[in-house]
């Protein structure tokens, strides 16, 4: 008797469970839970911890007391921080413009039919695939103050008579890291935009051509509007990544010469890890947040407008 009732109870439980899950609200909650847990653990928790750190006076190994906005006040009056803010905007702005134009150009070229297309498309991705630190070390050698191969080549070709101080001059150091970031970022733009281009039906192009549209007109009035939503998403990703860039600058210049190439992330690292002032480092990192939030909101709104249109 006992053994006969057990399976019946089990079946009943299963049925109750199924009935609960038939309710969409419960089903949604069940399906969303793993994601929510993951997001909570790996995004919300570190973020809240970061906010807490930035409001305390913690140093390495010393949990500090709550000090309110004192750390933000301190960095606001910090000249190096202001340089880092300006550098970050300049670095992100310039690189994004170049990556977009060069990436788009490359995507348009790759969208044509030619021999060995598949191989070239794969090869284009190389700068993006190689670990950043590794490729940046190679670039560091190319820009080395003494042994720069770029200087050597320019000298041998007769373009320069004295060495160019790539990483030692503040403006050239910034230019150098911008060049490397563009080199590394173009493949991401090119491949993503190429994917976007391939979704555009060739018939539209043909119809425009029959109507007498020139190549430039076909690009401007047909390709570009259709590519715009993809472009905006790619730009959004790139801006977020570039704004928070760390490894490239850390390897190339360490933020020098004389803080000329510090970005938010490298300066936060120097203060938080190098100097051991964790709370001040956290404040510098967090100062990035409102800027990024604003950029993201503007771009997302724009994307929605484009899509609605």
């Amino acid at each position, binding site marked *: 008797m006992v053994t006969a009732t057990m399976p019946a109870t089990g079946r009943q439980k299963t049925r109750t469970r199924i009935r609960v899950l038939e309710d969409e609200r419960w089903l949604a909650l069940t399906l969303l839970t793993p994601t929510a847990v993951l997001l909570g653990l790996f995004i919300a928790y570190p973020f809240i911890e970061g906010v807490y750190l930035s409001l305390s006076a913690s*140093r*390495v*190994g*010393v949990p500090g007391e709550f000090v309110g906005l004192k750390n933000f006040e*301190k960095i606001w*009056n*910090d*000249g*190096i921080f202001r340089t880092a803010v300006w550098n970050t905007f300049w670095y992100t702005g310039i690189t994004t413009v170049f990556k977009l134009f060069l990436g788009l150009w490359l995507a348009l070229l790759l969208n044509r039919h030619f021999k060995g297309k598949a191989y070239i498309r794969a090869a284009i991705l190389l700068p993006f695939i190689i670990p950043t630190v590794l490729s940046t070390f190679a670039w560091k050698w190319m820009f*080395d*103050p*003494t*042994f720069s191969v770029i200087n050597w080549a320019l000298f041998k070709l007769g373009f320069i008579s004295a*060495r160019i*101080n*790539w*990483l*030692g*001059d*503040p403006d050239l*150091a910034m230019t150098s890291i911008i060049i490397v970031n563009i080199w590394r970022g173009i493949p991401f733009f090119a491949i993503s935009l190429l994917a976007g281009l391939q979704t555009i039906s060739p018939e539209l192009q043909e119809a425009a051509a029959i109507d007498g549209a020139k190549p430039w007109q076909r690009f401007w009035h047909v390709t570009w509007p259709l590519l715009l939503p993809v472009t905006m998403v790619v730009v959004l990703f790139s801006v977020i990544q570039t704004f928070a860039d760390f490894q490239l600058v850390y390897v190339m*210049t*360490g*933020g*020098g*010469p*004389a*803080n*000329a190439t510090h970005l938010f992330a490298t300066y936060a*690292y*120097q*203060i*938080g*890890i*190098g*100097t*051991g*002032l*964790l709370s001040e480092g956290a404040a510098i990192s967090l100062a990035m947040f409102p800027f990024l939030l604003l950029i993201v909101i503007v771009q997302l709104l724009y994307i929605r407008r484009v899509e609605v249109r």
Partner: protein
Amino acid sequence: MPRISRRKLLHSTAGAAAMTSGGLAAILASGRAPAYAQGTQIHWLKWNDYVPAADVLLRNQMLGEAQKALGFKINLETIGLNDLQARATAAIQAQSGADIIMAFNNNAQLYTESTVDVSDVCEEIAAKQGGFYDLSKAQSHDGKKWVAVPYCIIGTMIAYRKSWFDEIGVTKFPETWDAYREVGKKLKAKGRPLGQSLGHTVGDAPAFAYPLLWSFGGREVEADGKTVKLNSKETVESIKFMTAFWKDAHDEGGLAWDDSNNNRAFLSGTISSTLNGASIYIEALRKPDQYQTEKGVQIKTDIQHAPLPKGAQGQYGVHPFQNHMVMGYSKNQKAAKDFLRWFHSPEVYEKWFIVQQGYATGPTKSWEDHKIWDKDPVMAPYRVAGRLGRVYGYAGPAGQKAAEVLSKYIVVDMYAKAVQGMPAEDAAKWADGEVKKIYGA
């Protein structure tokens, strides 16, 4: 044959060790390792030595000997000098990581709350080895206790190409900054500039910038450790001097150099003189045929060493310093201390000291008398490095605030900004403002 179980073996060795317990001397005398829980291992994190042979010696020989003497295994991990601080910070925050971590200059002062009091080890070493240099104590003692065990002092001297100096009629290394500038001017005109890092790098750049400041009479803070007077007439003078000196005599790529750039530049014959540890000379000795002068002579025969020149207010040097912290989170604190005791016992440390060939000198005074200094006259100036030299933070204490000023590269950047075109007065004012924020003045 009776079987001896692991438990029995451990038990008997533990008993024997307990009987002979009486510090390292007793352990060595008994010739038997003291007992540690089975599987005890310590993790030692230090830099990649600029004398690679020293790391080879540690790995291939000394750590094996340590295991025999102490009864536990030592895992050595070496990383780049500029990455040490990041690892220490991460380990302290995570409360897990290496048991012993090497610190550079006064960095150990940043972590005083997270390290173990090693006064017992230090006092033992000091008593037997002629006492620590003031330099060693200032960097490793927080005023109450020893926070790290002094490891070694890396003497910094100027390495210069004797034949190139001879060619312009300079047979004796210039004694004053002005004379050095004149010499540098002539050398740069011949395409053989002086080389100096003014970049964000922990070794050479501050070891040059601070002594320059002091020799003109400038200082970041007064002896009270509170009054910041960096923006002084003397500091401005030193900046003006450096700006002209840089343009006249230096390889201007130095703004981007790390601690190894000048080594490469010197050995490849692009610079004539540079402030450095002895690593350039030691590398030239190690590979005599690889490094040759433009005349095909081994470069090692053309290297001489000299201290930084004098200024109006004296002659100074900073000799990069290293010590070992036993970490507060470590579960093997006793083993870590025993290892450091063992490593610094004279007969053990001597093996490592000899391989260094003078690049690293001992943190205690007795190492000045070692016969190694009579072997090579080129290395002789490094013998008393520990006695000379000031510590970062002068005239204040080498505590946390001095460590913060150093790790933010404020003094280095003051000069770097000026050589990039900022007026000397503005550079001094900027640096003074930054230092005041740190000292809370």
